[in-house]
């Protein structure tokens, strides 16, 4: 029986970069083609099609809470069919289902790589990604939880996901039972991507020589990804965002947020920001 490595993060915290780097690692350091939707080394954990096929049910006819209650069964069934470790991208918080059991069952969890980023930098990035104002994004990150892909009037290819507010999201994964998560700060990943990818590959038990890590990092440099997106587009770019790979910088909040916006974020998330070394 296989099990899962969860590549978990709040949105816009480096998850996509890491998934592309892991793809490159698995393909001898190749440059990823951003226009190819089969570029799916780390699929999302909540694919509606996978869920429906695994459980033989139409999730589109189920209410959200019933889908959430069945997700542990989905993961158990998928793990039971697999002999290899499964890598899955996650934006949900580590939460309990309506029935009170872990959404991500510990007995099929091999480990978690948790990517964390300064929320002051997430705000402008996510506002751009979601096509909303910075003030609305700050407010969104203050709400206890929001549901991603949970439109009441229709469905998407992903199941509804419960995104806790930034502080609670980080806490939920860091305090989850089982093998402690490998916490990777986005800022450190930018500063020394070779060291970060080496550490992550070791945690995931992936065979990777230093030369291969170097090639994968070179193939997924931010400016390369930006240029590739300009050339071919990126399959995961949301329709209302002009680009997916926007800046890829740390500390951009100093010029893109007002003092009031910074104050609101720090007031709300200060304790966890301090725990993560951002204050």
């Amino acid at each position, binding site marked *: 029986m296989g099990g899962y490595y969860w590549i978990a993060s709040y949105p816009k915290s480096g998850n996509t970069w890491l998934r592309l780097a892991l793809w490159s690692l698995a393909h001898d350091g190749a440059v990823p083609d951003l*226009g190819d*939707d089969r570029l799916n080394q780390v699929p999302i954990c909540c694919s*509606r*099609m996978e869920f*429906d*096929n*695994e*459980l*033989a*049910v*139409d*999730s*589109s*006819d*189920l*209410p959200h809470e*019933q889908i959430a*209650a*069945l997700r542990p*069964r*989905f993961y*158990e*069934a998928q793990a039971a069919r697999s002999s290899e470790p499964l890598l899955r991208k996650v934006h949900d918080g580590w939460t309990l289902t309506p029935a009170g059991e872990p959404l991500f069952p510990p007995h099929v969890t091999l480990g978690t790589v948790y990517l964390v980023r300064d929320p002051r930098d997430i705000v402008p990035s996510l506002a751009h990604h979601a096509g909303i104002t910075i003030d609305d994004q700050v407010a969104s990150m203050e709400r206890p939880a929001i549901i991603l892909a949970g*439109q*009441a*009037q*229709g*469905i*998407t*290819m992903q199941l509804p996901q419960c995104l806790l507010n930034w502080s609670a999201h980080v806490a939920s994964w860091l305090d989850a039972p089982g093998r402690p998560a490998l916490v990777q700060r986005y800022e450190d990943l930018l500063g020394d991507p070779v060291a970060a990818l080496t550490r992550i590959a070791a945690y995931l038990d992936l065979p990777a020589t230093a030369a291969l890590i170097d090639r994968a990092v070179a193939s997924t440099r931010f400016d390369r990804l930006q240029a590739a997106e300009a050339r*071919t*587009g*990126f*399959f*995961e*770019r*949301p*329709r209302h965002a002009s680009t997916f790979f926007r800046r890829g910088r740390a500390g951009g909040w100093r010029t893109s947020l007002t003092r009031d916006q910074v104050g609101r974020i720090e007031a709300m998330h200060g304790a966890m920001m301090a725990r993560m070394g951002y204050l």
Partner: protein
Amino acid sequence: MLADQGLCGWRVRSEIVLPELHPWQGDPAAGVDLVIRLGAVPDRLDNPIHVGALLQIGEDGACRHEIEGVATFHLDAAARVITVHPALSATDPAIRAFLFGTTFSLLCYRRGLLPLHAACVRVDGQNGPGVIALAGPSGVGKSTLAAAFRRAGHQVLGDDIAVLRIADDGIVTVLPGLARIKLWGESLHGLDLPSDGLERVTSKLEKFILPLDDAGSDAPLRVRTVVHLGWVNDPRHGEWRTLRGMEAVMQMSGNIYRHRYLARISAPGDSVLARAARAAAGIEQHLRIRRVQDFAGLDDLVARLGGLDARAGV
């Protein structure tokens, strides 16, 4: 007792009111092909070959499918009797939604038919009437596109599951199915269709049942084209191309309804992949269309597909 109804050419006798089915119009002397009754369902099947969270499959071909809070369904080993044990009022539409989902597809597999995850529309071209199957996973827009065809004056033969029969000569027909389209509020709004008076699939979802008064009662029609639908966010990634050979077979196989477990109860003889290959070969045209999902482009898509001469290809 309720009047008998027709589904896939079978005479159906049901203890549950099924507005999705037409009255039986076949031979009044014909025997009943399928009984749908209310009753108790065992918790465990004898000698199961599969026990999943929701689905059990018995060695003898019997199946049990449970949707907590809605109903438990049991298909007997002979694939002639479906027993429904409701957790809701027996008239609740959620029961029909799941009855005509997984349980219905189990029945099709058991009867040697191929359930395709597709809506079907009738297009009358230069070469006579034919069917375009709009195939793809949930959420890709099959039902919305079918409703757009209906708005443009085409007959919709059913949504979600198209029951295909492959004749000995290789010709593929779709059997008359359910006379309804399930549409989300967003789609009704985008298509300028009112939701007033429409029944919901379940009280907890903004998903409605649009009845099709003119569908489902016809004889089987030949499937000339399968459109394998996909979506993109960036128009640069859009696609419209003809699939041939293994590409068509693999797309067809991927769109066979929930085949991962359900195929375990297929009639003996051949695998789902082999049957998908035969179906793909018996259908003249396979198109791969990937597009940005927007309502504005639907009418153009309908016009382009509706104008296809299936035999001439594209």
